[in-house]
């Protein structure tokens, strides 16, 4: 257990044996429909873990790998959900198109906003992102005729996947839908890993480690932060689109800053300096919340307590602690 005074980990970000970790995680995810019911879980819970895990990992591109603190990521998540829902409802009943719609809506708005705030840092960055998130929340909440307002966007549902040679029924078969989620999740996180391994990704880490030095090296900091923000928003919006497909519904609470806070705590809980940390955090958080909220009405206190305990006693997160343990 680490109560380190500083959380700046200066070791390289790339794990020593990335393939083993990845293999274990995917082995576990692939076999979910087999082992989860035996432990008293249910498949929809695993779907939620994947979706929120993807959101947290996308958020972590910013927090963990660029060192910039956004506290309004629920906005892009929620916009992604609305983008998907609106596409399905008004444009075409196509699941892939819905995902594109979601990514575009969340990504473009995120990118525009990111342009405005790229030169801010620290808590001020956080504060402005919260406020912008609330604008997005407010617009979806008030634009009754388009978004369904307070009641949420209804009247759409995910469509079966048409692959040309065959059609996969992800509408009524929850196991198929879980594997569909897993497939999208795998592709998205694969792209994220490639991105981080690229020169661009390494530059982001350089900015995180020492912004001043990076600036002296001639790196256009603001532009990199802006791009990182935009990419992060796109992936978060993708997670949001999946969320809309999962629920067949989009509602304004999906943009609320309390969800932003939950995305941050998942990331920190799992370990923000580890690639898979946010996924582990999301799994822990979702399962704990699901379990506690069935046990007691006062689950908010317990969730709040998780926040406080993680911050005070486990600031490195689960994977961060394991990582530190092996370094010795």
């Amino acid at each position, binding site marked *: 257990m680490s109560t380190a005074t500083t*959380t700046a980990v200066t070791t390289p970000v790339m794990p020593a044996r990335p393939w083993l970790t990845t293999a274990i995680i995917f082995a576990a995810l692939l076999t979910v429909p087999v082992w989860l019911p035996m432990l008293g879980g249910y498949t929809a819970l695993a779907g939620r873990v994947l979706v929120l895990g993807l959101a947290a990992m996308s958020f972590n591109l910013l927090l963990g790998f660029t060192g910039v603190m956004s506290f309004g990521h629920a906005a892009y998540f929620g916009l992604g959900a609305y983008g998907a829902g609106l596409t399905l409802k008004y444009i075409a009943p196509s699941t892939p198109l819905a995902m594109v719609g979601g990514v575009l809506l969340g990504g473009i708005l995120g990118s525009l906003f990111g342009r405005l705030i790229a030169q801010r840092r*620290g808590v001020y960055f956080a504060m*402005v992102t919260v*406020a912008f998130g609330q604008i997005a929340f407010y617009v979806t909440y008030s634009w009754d005729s388009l978004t369904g307002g307070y009641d949420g966007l209804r009247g759409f549902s995910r469509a079966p996947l048409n692959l040309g040679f065959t059609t996969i029924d992800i509408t009524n078969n929850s196991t198929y839908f879980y594997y569909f989620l897993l497939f999208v999740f795998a592709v998205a996180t694969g792209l994220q890993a490639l991105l981080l391994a690229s020169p661009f990704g390494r530059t982001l880490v350089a900015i995180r480690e020492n912004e001043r030095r990076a600036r002296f090296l001639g790196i256009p900091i603001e532009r990199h932060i802006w791009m990182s923000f935009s990419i992060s928003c796109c992936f978060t919006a993708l997670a949001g689109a999946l969320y809309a497909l999962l629920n067949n519904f989009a509602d304004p609470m999906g943009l609320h800053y309390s969800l932003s806070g939950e995305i941050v705590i998942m990331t920190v809980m799992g370990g923000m300096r580890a690639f898979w940390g946010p996924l582990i955090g999301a799994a822990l958080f979702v399962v704990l919340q699901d379990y506690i909220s069935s046990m007691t009405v006062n689950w908010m206190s317990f969730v709040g*307590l998780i926040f406080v305990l993680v911050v005070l006693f486990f600031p490195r997160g689960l994977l961060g602690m394991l990582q530190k343990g092996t370094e010795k």
Partner: protein
Amino acid sequence: MLQLVLYNVTNGLIIGAFYVLMALGLSLILNLSNVINFAHGNFLALGGYIAFVLTPFLGYWGALIVSPLITALFGFAIERLMIRRVYSRDPVYSLLLTFGLAFIMQDACRYIWGPSGLQTSIPDILSAPLSADLFFITWYRIFMVALVIAAVSGLFAFLRFTRVGIRIRAGTLDLDTVSILGVNVGMLRSLNFAVGSLLAGLAGVLAAGQVGLNPNMGDDLLMPSFIAIIVGGVGSLTGTLCGGLLIGVAGALTTVFWPAASEAVIYVIMLVVLILRPRGLMGQEGMMS
């Protein structure tokens, strides 16, 4: 029409005064300790509930004075026990900490005082309107504004003329130097947090008389307070003051012409400010970077 506009400007100033009280506390803590207190709205609720509990024993006026003090004491304790532990870390931790605290405090209020709203009573002389023509301005509103003016003047006087106040202002500008000069920075931050909580507690007592008590009562005020700070300019208390009044008046004026947009307008103002003048109306250049 002109009359209606004037009515609403007055009204907007009254609402703005509320935002100011809340935002000044947030701003104080943000400036000196670099912490966004997400639980600030819950300190407000706590102030209201404590006054509710004390009123049978101390009467309305006694509770009005004692409740903010207790809230301040509570804030002081929270800062000492928890928040000070994360100052040296990445700002993400202080955000998460106050965020979690907000969850716990809201749930505690619900647990102790119940999920439904509670009635609060204000003295009869305050609940009457000024006159038949000014029926929409009750004495309570006048009283609220007077109290806010007193509290804000008090705060500015405290920062200008007392030893602690001057140190807080100095610390806002350059904490390292203040520390080297031998000031106990830890204690300074605790006191500063307590002052912020005091303002929130006072706002809570006043809000309870106006809109009643419920566990989520602070939530609706938190975002406008953020916006007041951003619009006014981070780092400037005068800016926060102006920002709060500005969005209060803007909201009320919108009510005349397009009532449904009266909440949205404050967000529009923030966006405009962010685009045209990113540092805020009175913010210092570089303060937000």
